[in-house]
């Protein structure tokens, strides 16, 4: 496992470096702030750049038109983009890429179009029942989609259809971080079938998306904590640098531990998936990572606000942006409770 990680260290480093193209190193949030509540909530240019960097099909095998990398690279990437508060819907697009690679419409993978999969029928879920006429909910940045993919159940199998987003019935809601989520009521008569049996691929893709989201949360934690440490080292009260107050020092130590636990859980899970794990082993690794990222992530983000005091509660100061993004992603692809239950339902021998 760790050997595998060592072997990949070069490609991971390269991915991290290339992410700088989209997530400025200095942590400049000007673009991100300007994008807020401006439909569709992200930049199509930046998304196109991501596509051209090969990120959308990052984990898709080269034979199927992807970059042939793995989840270790994917979580490294989503971590950097998380730290940069990048709004573009990369993780949903990566999920769609997985499906497209297994479909009859592989051309769509390289089209540069924004392809979003409308898989979700209720809140806090990681399963796609594929109910044909069910409204599909919580589609991130649905207003920016060019094409929707919909899993549709047919007996024991789940087929995949694609639907042009133009003219689709999409209702948008604003999210805390300045983005949007949408509900799609699809007219399936307008859709084209592009795969017959996508169920297993979709399960796999949802697990990958959950893990990539855990990586994104790790990035939020790291960056918010970095800002907080900087604040603790400079802000003065009572004639002292507040970072000299032991109660704040010890809290910072606890946050560091939670970040380290999250990194270990996320990177271990990525290595497990890159080892080719399937079924219960894959689910256990993913649930463990997503559970940790959500629980520890929100703990860290909350405390970063607290450690900033009043200024942390202002929109003007960056640390709050991380909390608000955290709220949006914390339960995407399953809440901590969902993943805890899923983990506990697996046989111990699969988990360890």
């Amino acid at each position: 496992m760790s050997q595998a990680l060592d072997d990949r260290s070069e490609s991971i480093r390269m991915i991290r470096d290339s992410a700088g193209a989209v997530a400025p190193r200095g942590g400049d949030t000007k673009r991100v702030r300007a994008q807020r509540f401006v439909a569709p909530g992200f930049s199509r240019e930046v998304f196109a750049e991501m596509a051209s960097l090969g990120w959308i099909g990052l984990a898709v095998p080269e034979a199927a038109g992807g970059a042939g990398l793995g989840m270790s690279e994917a979580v490294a990437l989503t971590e950097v983009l998380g730290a940069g508060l990048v709004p573009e819907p990369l993780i949903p697009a990566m999920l769609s890429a997985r499906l497209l690679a297994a479909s009859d419409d592989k051309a769509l993978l390289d089209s540069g179009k924004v392809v979003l999969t409308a898989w979700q029928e209720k809140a806090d879920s990681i399963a796609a029942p594929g109910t044909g006429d069910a409204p599909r909910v919580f589609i991130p940045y649905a207003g920016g989609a060019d094409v929707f993919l919909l899993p549709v159940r047919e007996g024991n199998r789940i087929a995949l259809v694609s639907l042009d987003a133009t003219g689709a019935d999409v209702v948008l809601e604003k999210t805390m971080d300045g983005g949007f989520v949408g509900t799609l009521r699809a007219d399936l008569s307008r859709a084209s079938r592009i795969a017959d049996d996508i169920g297993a691929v979709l399960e796999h893709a949802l697990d990958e998306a959950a893990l990539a989201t855990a990586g994104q949360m790790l990035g939020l934690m790291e960056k918010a904590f970095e800002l907080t440490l900087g604040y603790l080292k400079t802000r003065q009260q009572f004639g002292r640098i507040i970072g000299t107050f032991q109660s704040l020092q010890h809290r910072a130590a606890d946050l560091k531990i939670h970040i380290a636990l999250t990194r270990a859980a996320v990177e271990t899970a990525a290595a497990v998936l890159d080892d080719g794990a399937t079924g219960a082993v894959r689910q256990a690794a993913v649930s463990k990572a997503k559970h940790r990222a959500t629980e520890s992530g929100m703990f860290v983000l909350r405390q970063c606000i607290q450690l900033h005091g009043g200024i942390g509660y202002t929109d003007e100061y960056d640390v709050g942006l991380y909390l608000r993004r955290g709220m949006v992603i914390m339960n995407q692809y399953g809440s901590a409770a969902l993943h805890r239950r899923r983990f506990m339902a697996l046989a111990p021998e699969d988990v360890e």
Partner: protein
Amino acid sequence: MAVSIAPKEATDLNAMEDEAFRTHVRTWIEANYPAELRNPPKRLHWEENKPWYFQLAEKGWLCPGWPRQFGGLGLSPAKQIIFTEEIERHGCARTNDHGIVMVGPLLINHGTDAQQQEFLPKILNGEHVWCQGYSEPNAGSDLAALRTEAVLDGDEYVVNGQKIWTTLASDANWCFLLVRTDKNAKKQEGISFLLVDMATPGITVKPIINLEYHDEFCEVFFDNVRVPAKNLVGTPNRGWDMAKALLSFERIYLGSPRLSAYAFTRLRQLAERMGVWEEATFQDTYGRLRLDLEDLKSLYGTFVDKLRRGETLGADVSMLKVFQTELFQRITDTMLEIAGENAGLLEPMEGNRNLNPTGQYIQARPATIYGGSNEIQRNILSKNVLGLPG
């Protein structure tokens, strides 16, 4: 001759039996409070608040704690508690109440006859809406480090500096201000209390957008603002003790279980909506929070009993603020945990104001920061209550 302001409310309500008084208050509130403003998700602005404010003023109930001699309701501590309980029970919005709870008591205790005669009636009739100029960018938790200064020039003070976290300053036409009047004195000394007309040239108010995308707080800039010297309250350079005394009101107010209790009812509604209400694990979490809330109520009750007996509260009242605000946060943390992707929505779910986990969550964040952060409260407890050194 002492000041005398006729109270609007002719009846001495202290003479009523407690339960009759409670019913009396409750009935009037229910008949008069605008239904659409019950339990508002955000702090209301003056424009939204003022019809109710003027209704209270008209009734003579705006200042329940002020002595009748000064135009207040003159309620006994026990009756004031009932009055507050009914206001909170009904979910009435907090009004722009700094004039009522801060400036009024300040002037009644420390003001000159002239100050009392000038300002108290205008608070009572709603003409003056006050804001509190305490915190500064580098004097938050360490309030005594404030640097906004007032220099006497003839019969006017010239004020320069900046205040921050000034609640609803954009709604106020007057401000009570802590300023440094002696730069050479020790930190807590050399601070004075000034009353400032917000229309005075040189004052700029800049709202701060907060995590709710709301503008409850403001920055207020003072650039050579000239304030009549007669607007200084009490003894020059002795404002710090008065300011601290006024803050004791805030500590019991911030320790009231009402925010937690309100959030708690909404947690149940959310759990029902999300379909987790019947789950044993949720019931266990809910049970823990509920028992915390009930025990907070019991503890709060012991402090209220002291007020009812006319005792003053000690530093141990900080316990309430710490536990209440952290409970409020834990309740709203739980909301997000069960809300699924709704944990990321900007607006209430399905347009239902009662299903507003994100609003409640964000509102709960500053509770542990303002009014003296919980770190400060724990310092107070350890030093002033437990007698721990240094």
